[in-house]
């Protein structure tokens, strides 16, 4: 057994706030999260100096929202998780009775999105064929909140995700295997392959135009 002093426990905490048009705020969720296997993959690549050439490839730049977090809870999700159960913009949704596989799930609002491949636990590409949609985390949403903590403030405004019952969220590193993937910018190179680094199912939130959602996610090391 390790001594307490021998290890660093990477951990995280997620708060979810509804923000109504009049400015009223209501906290609807407040709990810890799970740091997932992709964090280890990315950091090990960084420390080996072998995964990617640019620092942005190792940073957490993307997130996904999903609609099947209740399944994750029933099946005792843990740090081996490498995808949301049913993310918006994920083709698998169509097969599970979800709502298709396009960025249109998120609606039209103040978010920037991109398509990536999803990394599985051994570094391979998880999705077959069509890539997933990811929501970009802008630089001003990332803040170092203590010596060893970083907080991500993720905004889903009133126009986004309406009609969906949201109940899971994941943070993703950009592309820690970039150096190994033949991703020439011109000529049909591979897409970034993003690993899930933190995950949390949460209470059902039926998103509507009445409120925006703010996810305040703090990772500590």
């Amino acid at each position, binding site marked *: 057994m390790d001594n307490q002093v*021998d290890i660093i426990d990477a951990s995280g905490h997620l708060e979810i706030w509804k923000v109504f048009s009049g400015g009223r705020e209501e906290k609807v969720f407040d709990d810890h999260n799970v740091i997932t296997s992709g964090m*280890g993959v990315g950091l090990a690549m960084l*420390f080996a100096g072998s995964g990617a050439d640019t620092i942005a490839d190792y940073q957490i730049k993307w997130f996904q929202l999903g609609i099947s977090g209740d399944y994750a809870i029933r099946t005792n999700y843990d740090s*081996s998780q490498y995808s949301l159960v049913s993310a918006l913009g994920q083709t698998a949704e169509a097969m599970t009775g979800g709502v298709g596989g396009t960025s249109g799930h998120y609606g039209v609002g103040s978010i920037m999105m991109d398509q990536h491949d999803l990394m599985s636990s051994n570094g391979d590409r998880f999705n077959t064929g069509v890539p997933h949609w990811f929501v970009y985390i802008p630089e001003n949403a990332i803040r170092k909140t203590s010596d060893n903590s970083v907080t991500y403030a993720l905004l889903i405004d009133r126009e986004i995700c309406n009609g969906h019952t949201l109940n899971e969220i994941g943070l993703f590193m950009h592309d820690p295997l970039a150096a190994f993937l033949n991703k020439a910018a011109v000529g049909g190179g591979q897409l970034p392959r993003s690993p899930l680094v933190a995950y949390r199912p949460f209470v059902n939130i039926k998103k509507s135009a009445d409120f925006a959602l703010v996810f305040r996610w703090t990772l500590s*090391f």
Partner: protein
Amino acid sequence: MISGKLKVTQVFSDGTQRKVFEDSNIITDGMGINIATLFATNGSQKSSNFAPAYFQLGTCAIEFSAPGVVGGAGGIATDAQYHLSSAFYKMSSAYSIDSFGESSDLRFFYGNRSFQASSDHTEWGEMFFTSALNLSGSTTSSTSTKEWFAEIPVVNNTKYYIDSIEYRIALDENSLNGLPIKEVGLFAKNPVGLKHDHPMLVAYKKFEQPFNKTKDFSLVFDWSIGFLKHFIAWDNFSNVVGEESESVEKWFLS
């Protein structure tokens, strides 16, 4: 969970090898600061600056049961406080380049060491154990004087598993002879991203029984850093050895 393990092997000139030490190490608070700085995008803009690239060896050790042995901003603390904290950023007494000998194969860097500084409302000082518990503020700073750091060549890095990394520190037959080795520290290169490297301590190990180095053998330190306990996939991307290699075990499974 981020954890590490250190194995020390004597390698004699006839090729004989003898394992003399194997134990977990301390992942210090510098590792957490290193990673948080990476993710907060406010440190170095070079990924290589966050990776361990230097080491130091020392003649004494950070003591956990005898408060006040090592200086700094620390004070009197209970044993429990020491055992629950890894808030230190320096070796107890690191060897300088002169101690390694003129014929050492190692390459050295002479520079300022990064640390986390804390304030007790009146003055700032290097954070050391209990000072981390009572701080009113903290910031990353660096030593005003320079220290010697030995380089870990990139070619000495190995990846067997996709979520762990091994560093090999080879202390050749001509290095540090006649001197006891009681501590070793692993330093990230330059996480703050200053013009010149400012290494930060990220992992540390003290030896209850010091190694007395002689010219009869080299000492090889194999240092593994792993990130999760139950993940067992091979690294098929950067792995340069076969899966049938017997050189490693999945140590953090146990």
